[in-house]
């Protein structure tokens, strides 16, 4: 139970679980790695150099899209995909804050057990 206040942000699905699940696959992780430069990529470009078919890549992109990690933009007859870093940033920020609170609590525990007045 960490101490924090209402985010003021409209409740956002998908659940964290979906973000973790989406990233727990080497193909999708490598797609995210490519898309990380924040430029829009066409599916053909993302398929190039991969052993997977265009259909398979498209399927993986849909999983990333449903986790809010990428979004597609229509460019003429082709879809382009762009990276959306917010879900990852949100999780990291949350873990960082919980982690920070543990640092503080454990430091109080340390003082407590090492202080001779409490033996």
């Amino acid at each position, binding site marked *: *139970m960490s101490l924090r*206040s209402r*985010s003021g942000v409209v409740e956002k699905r998908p659940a964290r679980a979906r973000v973790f699940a989406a990233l727990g696959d080497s193909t999708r992780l490598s797609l995210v790695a490519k898309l990380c430069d924040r430029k829009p990529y066409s599916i053909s470009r993302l398929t190039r150099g991969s052993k997977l078919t265009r259909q398979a890549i498209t399927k993986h992109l849909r999983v990333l899209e449903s986790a809010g990690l990428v979004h597609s933009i229509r460019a003429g007859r082709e879809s382009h995909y762009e990276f959306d870093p917010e879900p990852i940033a949100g999780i990291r*920020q*949350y873990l960082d804050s919980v982690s920070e609170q543990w640092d503080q609590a454990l430091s*109080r525990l340390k003082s407590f*057990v*090492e*202080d001779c007045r409490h033996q």
Partner: protein
Amino acid sequence: MNDSIEKRVELRAPVSRVWRALTDYREFGEWFCVKLDGPFVPGEVSRGQITYPGYEHIRWEAVVQKMEPERLFSFTWPHPKSFEKGDDLPDYSKEPSTLVEFRLEKTATGTLLILTESGFDKLPADRRLEAFRRNDGGWTEQMKNIESYVTPKP
């Protein structure tokens, strides 16, 4: 992607001393800043009230999981969306929980404490912390004050 937190702390105190500080509900309350209603019992809900200045409106609720003497103490606890004053109290039984584990190992100089908190993947994605930084920046600062207050002077 990592969905857990791990901390390792070397404590210059025997394992038995650390075990007591973790599992005696009054001693736990001292350093965690919470006033607990009663002792920790595996399988039972532990209730209490946070005593940290400015956060006294926050309830403590956790379900004690394991108490293996001088080895492992664990509990699950909820991560409610809001602890703001004036908001409706969260229904803790319906909030997603994470698992907190304290493991103790004897060392040459005392005790190695390994803390893990896991299960963050179960939390909804909206628990984000821009607001934490904005509103609760003072919390971290206050913790540092307390730390220096309780640390014995040389």
